[in-house]
């Protein structure tokens, strides 16, 4: 199976690989997937308390090229968005942007899940209620 150029580019030059201090109150961490399934994504956001804007985002991913590209792209999109805007990122946007084939859609779902998990982690840390999301269907 051939990868799209965008996937290859993210794989070769991933954006925002790294780790934020998960004990910090401003940092939300989402860890999704499982080693048994062949992909694990950790996505972190740093939020400015005063403005509610995401000032930084980092990821680390164990997985195929599409999983790495999906999480790299997600961090790019997250930076500069408000938390509310970030919640609107849909996995199909990632599929479209990266030209993911059907068998790799689950990588984009995982990235969306990671964003939501990171936001909920940030919310619960800061005394807000976690948002209940509908179960993802494409797992």
């Amino acid at each position, binding site marked *: 199976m051939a*990868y799209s150029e965008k996937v*290859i580019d993210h*794989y070769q030059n*991933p954006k925002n*690989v790294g*780790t934020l201090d998960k004990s910090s109150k401003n940092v939300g961490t989402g*860890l*999704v*997937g*499982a*080693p*048994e*399934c*062949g*992909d*694990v*994504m*950790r996505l972190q956001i740093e939020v400015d308390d005063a403005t509610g804007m995401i000032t930084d985002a980092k990821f*680390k*991913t*164990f*997985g*195929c*090229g599409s*999983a*790495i590209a999906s999480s790299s792209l997600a961090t790019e999109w997250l930076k500069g968005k408000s938390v509310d805007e970030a919640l609107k990122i849909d996995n199909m946007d990632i599929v479209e942007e990266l030209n993911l084939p*059907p*068998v*790799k*859609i*689950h990588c984009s779902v*995982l990235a969306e*899940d990671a964003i939501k*998990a990171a936001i909920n982690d940030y919310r619960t840390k800061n005394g807000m209620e976690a948002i209940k999301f509908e179960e993802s269907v*494409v*797992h």
Partner: protein
Amino acid sequence: MLKLPIYLDNNATTPMDPRVFEAMTPYFMEHFGNAASRNHPFGWEAEEAVDYAREQVAKLIGADPKEIIFTSGATEADNLALKGVYEMYASKGNHIITATTEHKAVLDTCKHIEKMGGEVTYLQVKPDGLIDLKELEAAIKPTTILISIMYANNEIGTVMPIPEISAIARKNGVLLFTDGTQAVGKIPVDVNKDGIDLMAFTAHKMYGPKGVGALYVRRKNPRVKVTAQMDGGGHERGMRSGTLNVPGIVGFGKACELCMLEMEADTKRISILRDKLETELLKLEEAYVNGSREHRLPHVANISFKHVEGEGLLMGFNKNIALSSGSACTSASLEPSYVLKALGLGDDLAHSSLRFGLGRFTNEEQIDYTIKAISETVLKLREMSPLWEMYKEGIDLSTIEWAAH
């Protein structure tokens, strides 16, 4: 000069040896006859060529030419052996013993036989990929007609103790079939010394053409028969109808002859390269060889690089190096290699594996390039891997509750 891409997937198929191609060429246009045409020179030429090839093939495995049944490949030979014995020996019993690490051509055929009313025992393998001979013997019952154990595994290269398995089969009056696809032409295989009753093998794994293989069927001590699975003109002593693929068979014969002549020198050279590759890659932290290192094909290595996913790893260099991975990261199949899982490997290690298959045309420059490319990619991906970070922090990954996925 190093030419890219490098081919290290010789367990999937081998490039054809130019000498094989040369031998085949006249049989496409010039000598196009049907080997079954008995009444004219076109047929005679074709028949003569097939007879000669049959001798070349038989010689490689120490068989009599009459014991070689040409097929379209190893999958067909596997089907013919298993279904053919099941049907032919129905009055004796309906039980077959095989192992969980067999090729799908064997496993799926066994599943089919189960649907037809047969009974199949699937032996587990030990962590080194070998079956337990005591378990094998214990699995034999009065209705057992066949033991089907592959000579060498396609994913990990583990070589089964065929002579010992044969001794158990003989003692109990059970036939032994072996899928010799990966072994024949690579290591010495002798149907008499090894006590094999039926064996499937194919040309394209030994530098011959695709689309031609053979089933060895023993004619003496004991005389083995299989029920044909293809009805028609009664070719191949009635066991496999269908006009013979003359150019393919000629190429198969030539490939066998070359393997016979060059096996020793090839093995010596290739195993040195394989060992170099393995030694260098094992210098990476948390890298493990899968399957027995002692009982193994000389050209195969299967290595897991912990905390890096196989498909992601391949992407780092697969434009330049052709390899295969035990990981299948698609929504259709999230299951990693069943062979690696059968060794008792966790899914995470199975997802992290690469299979190296060296061959006659592999050289040291290619191996050096491969070592460098893979080492660099593993290090790069580990920097990107959350699992590697946790491992380095001393977190036991098995204690983490992973989100259902």
